[in-house]
């Protein structure tokens, strides 16, 4: 069995949008999107002691290699980074196209995603990638197992749980409730340096530059504005009188 895990390198700490490019400023330090750590963990759990191969795949700047190395340190076997200046600023249409092309080369039984990207709050990519790969997709997986070429998923929804089965190959997005990701061990970190790591350009995955980046995108950012003011937000520390202060606040808002 072969499992691909798609991961994203996201900015760490307080993020900003560059007013010039209107894109998220990715020049600072970054880290593995923590929701993706759940997907890596799940792939490693599915692999267990078996002979499955876990390949981590990312699309991003050269620095995204750090996040892929972290996934390798956790225990993934191999990493693929698609990195190309022409891919910067890709929206969902372009990103899903690029990622699907990279995944087609891998021909995996399962493609895993984390439940969302912490930088863009995007929680949609898997379904677009699944459509491009023409594979079944299941999201919000809170339990996952595989037997006889069939995927068994417990999906959490607004209404409860659905038990879903799908034939492999398939695409799954896991919920962050599915597991507790392991921390890389020192041995894992040392070992990660020797694991296979491929960096691919758009040409390598067979995508024309016109289909990537802003050129290949179908959405655009038109402007940046201030959020509507949230009234006069207040924060107080309890000095023994907080209950009364809350009541006064509610009275002022005519809520009691």
């Amino acid at each position: 069995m072969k499992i691909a895990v798609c991961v994203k390198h996201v900015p760490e700490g307080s993020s900003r949008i560059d007013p010039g490019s209107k894109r998220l400023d990715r020049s600072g330090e970054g880290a593995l999107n923590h929701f993706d750590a759940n997907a890596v963990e799940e792939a490693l759990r599915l692999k267990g002691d078996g002979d499955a191969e876990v390949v981590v795949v990312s699309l991003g700047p050269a620095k995204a290699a750090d996040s892929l190395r972290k996934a390798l340190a956790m225990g993934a076997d191999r990493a693929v980074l698609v990195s190309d200046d022409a891919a910067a600023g890709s929206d969902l249409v372009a990103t899903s196209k690029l990622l699907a092309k990279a995944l087609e080369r891998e021909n995996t039984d399962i493609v895993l995603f984390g439940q969302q990207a912490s930088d863009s709050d995007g929680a949609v990519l898997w379904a677009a990638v699944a459509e491009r790969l023409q594979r079944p997709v299941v999201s919000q997986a809170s339990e996952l197992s595989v037997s006889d070429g069939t995927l068994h998923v417990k999906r959490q929804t607004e209404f409860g749980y659905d038990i879903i089965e799908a034939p492999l190959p398939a695409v799954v997005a896991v919920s962050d409730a599915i597991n507790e990701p392991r921390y890389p061990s020192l041995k894992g970190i040392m070992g990660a340096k020797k694991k296979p790591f491929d960096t691919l350009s758009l040409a390598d995955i067979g995508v024309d530059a016109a289909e990537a980046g802003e050129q290949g995108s179908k959405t655009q950012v038109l402007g940046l504005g201030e959020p509507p003011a949230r009234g006069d937000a207040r924060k107080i520390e309890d000095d023994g009188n907080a209950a009364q202060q809350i009541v006064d606040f509610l009275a002022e808002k005519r809520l009691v």
Partner: protein
Amino acid sequence: MSVLVFIEHHGSELQKGSLGVLTKAATLGDADVAAVLVGGGVKALASEAATFGAAKVFVAESDDLEPPLPQPRVDVIAKVAQENGYDTILLANSVLAADVAAGLSARLDAGLNWDLVDIDADFTGKRPALQDSVYVDVGWTSTPRIALFRAGSFDASATASGEPQIVDVAVELSEHSRGAKIVSQELEESSSGPSIEDADIVVAGGRGLGAPENFSLAEELARALGGAVGATRAVVDAGWYPYSAQIGQTGKVVSPKLYVALGISGAIQHKVGMQSSNVIVSINKDANAPIFEFSDLGVVGDVHEIVPKLTELIAQRKSS
């Protein structure tokens, strides 16, 4: 302009979020607005849906389509949009709708803007970003445009009258859309009493309550305020409180007049279920809890100290 709105249903109930989006669509200039319903028994819901602003309702009626899976819905909506030339497709966010929207984006090579809280008649969308600290104006460079709206963005109001035109849609599903099957469902039992979605006041508890029995703090405060009790996924997963009270991405989405968060850190999973509440009051020991970033009144303190006093003060006030 022609706008197609995906209307989600659960059982025989149309989902408020998608009716809100349809209500909004009907206000977008002179756009020709239609709704699309997919599932078993949906034909019976078409007229009701139309009253929220659709002159035409496309209905893909089939028991095979009833299980809430995204890919068959992509097949249906893509066909309706292509054959009828809809240039805009709107959806209200949900576990199902997010996957439908993204599948459509790839199928139609159509731009998708998500997490929008508003859209205007020029089809410029508004998307909060970076923990809602920036509001981004977003657009589309080609049609069809696809927009996925944050839960609770629009109120649903029935305004239209007259019988809609109902159009049956028959769809041959793609092979990959037939792969996933729901083999069983564990749906929450519907609780008696006012639902948290309809309550004007919601008091919700999280891990910070410390133990399941401390949910009585939330229950007593809710009783004093005349509200309903909610819970975070963490405490529902831990078995402290029933699933039916879960608020968040995989739970209920609420937008009450007052939301009181007790011992809730404010993880994104929870935030998406309550951020459109009118007034948010939170109590948490951790001064750095994210919940304070979107609270109108944030109180750094111990819920076990503050809440009993608060409940008593409110009860006194109401009885005086």
